[in-house]
């Protein structure tokens, strides 16, 4: 009897633990400032207000009788920056990994295994280790606060995992297909683009998702390398709402929830690839 009832309880506890905090942020983002500070707290917004979202998305509002400027100019800029840097980093990382992994799996060239081992070994060292010299380097080449600079750093940080993933994907492909293509006179590149890469689509999607989510969530790198709104992403802008003279929890929660829309979409629609990528990334 006990085992039968333990499972639903476990599921409910797990759902509350995983989604409860997100629900609370969602509820708070729809509460008026007076309801946010109510005692005891409301678990549902007594009155649904869109004012925090309106403030983020371009409308001026009033708070405690004062006119509040919309943060849309900053917010939209940071949103674009987040999309551009994460998108560019994803495309470049996956492209380099898809091509490079083929070389590391199927082609022989001097230093192949040593290079692969060195690149993958950087998975074990924190990206922050090289941040200080990287900062001085980026200043010298004038790439601080540029899309190119930030994207390159992201690529160097996420490439090892993507390469590792793509290599394990290629290794799992049957060699016979490529041999058949070779016998038919297909070149290596033709085989790679027409047979290997199309067959590896799930692996490519998994690498792309992992790279995108990592880039989207990056904080320390843009904190240092994106000092102004020129390239500052949402992750750096949103905490700045906290440190203003008064903490606007409604605005903060609303901004946070807008920032999690991409991860939520990925988890809902592409979770299969995400899970397989995580499993492969951690394993062999």
């Amino acid at each position, binding site marked *: 009897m006990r085992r039968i009832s333990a499972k639903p309880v476990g599921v409910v506890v797990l759902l509350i633990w995983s989604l409860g905090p997100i629900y609370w942020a969602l509820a708070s983002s729809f509460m008026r400032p007076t309801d946010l500070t109510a005692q005891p707290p409301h678990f549902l917004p007594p009155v649904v207000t869109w004012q925090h979202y309106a403030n983020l998305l371009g409308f001026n509002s009033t708070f405690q009788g004062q006119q509040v400027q919309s943060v849309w100019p900053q917010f939209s800029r940071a949103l674009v920056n987040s999309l551009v840097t994460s998108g560019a980093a994803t495309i470049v990382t996956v492209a380099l990994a898809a091509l490079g992994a083929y070389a590391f799996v199927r082609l*022989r060239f001097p230093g192949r295994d040593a290079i692969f081992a*060195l690149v993958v070994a950087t998975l074990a060292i924190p990206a922050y280790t090289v941040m200080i*010299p990287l900062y001085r380097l980026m200043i010298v080449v004038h790439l601080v606060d540029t899309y190119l600079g930030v994207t390159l750093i992201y690529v160097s940080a996420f490439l090892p995992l993507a390469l590792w993933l793509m290599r394990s994907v290629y290794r799992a492909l049957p060699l016979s297909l490529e041999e058949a293509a070779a016998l038919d006179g297909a070149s290596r590149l033709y085989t790679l683009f027409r047979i290997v890469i199309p067959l590896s689509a799930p692996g490519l999607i998994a690498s792309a998702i992992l790279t995108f989510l990592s880039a989207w969530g990056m904080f320390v790198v843009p904190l240092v390398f994106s000092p102004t709104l020129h390239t500052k992403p949402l992750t750096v802008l949103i905490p700045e709402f906290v440190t203003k003279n008064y903490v606007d929890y409604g605005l903060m929660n609303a901004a946070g*929830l807008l*920032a999690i829309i991409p991860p939520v979409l990925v988890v809902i629609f592409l979770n299969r690839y995400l899970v397989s990528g995580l499993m492969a990334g*951690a394993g062999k």
Partner: protein
Amino acid sequence: MSLALALAPGRRRETGLGLLLALPIVLVMASLVFYPLLLTLWDSLHRVDPMRYGTPFVGLGQYIELFNDSDVGAAWGNTIWLVIMAVVAETVGGVLIALLLQSVRRGRQWLLAAVILPWAMPPIVNAIIWLWIYNPSYGLLNAVLRDLGVISHYHVWFNDRATALALIAVVHVWRMMPLTAVIVLAALQGIPHELYEAARIDGARPWRSFVAITLPLIAPALAIALTQSTIFAFNLFDEAWILAGASLDTRTLLIETYMLAFQNLHFSYGMALSVLVMLVSLAVSLLYVMRSGRGATYE
């Protein structure tokens, strides 16, 4: 007519293509990771300080200074506590979640999606969500605990160092536990069902078959999960930064490095600290690689 000779042009072309495809990766990693890494090692032996003239060689002087720096010592202490709390909670919780997921038949992919969501979100947003929950005046934590009768009055949670570290660990665990759960779940799915059948026929209780069958078979996956948990917790920055800023009570090694280098502009002193952090991270990974040598030979 030897075969090797006939193949030679093809082989050479293969070498060229291999180098060409690997070249971009080599360039990116060499210029943005390995060159700065060597620079870090080199500069940590010199005094590189934008506010002072010259970069004299100081040998291990900065490393010795680090050992006598009380702020750095506190950061080591904070980080070690966070690692212990996070790794224990993530491992125990992750295994429990994996077992639960494995046993759920209907709607498992939806439960899995809910479990993974905190991991997929930007760490900054996670920390902000919990910052609001931990709010001393209007936060959910105080209200819920008072309603349950656990506390009699509202607490300012971050006034106490131990509590503050524990609450930061909770946020980190909330984010990272799904990773352990997924890694363990993959291992669980690889265990043949017949093993449990046989154990059940032999009259083994669930706990007994967990210890005798499940645990040994998920041990390699657990080792991977443990390594990941340790390295991620060791490099904790975002959660502590959002929840408590640069507060010395909760300052982690990475925050200390950031403060040294980018706030106080002691570049090479910060680099010396980051070299130490890197060495510990590498040691943890090596420990794992040596423990699971099987995987390495299996390749």
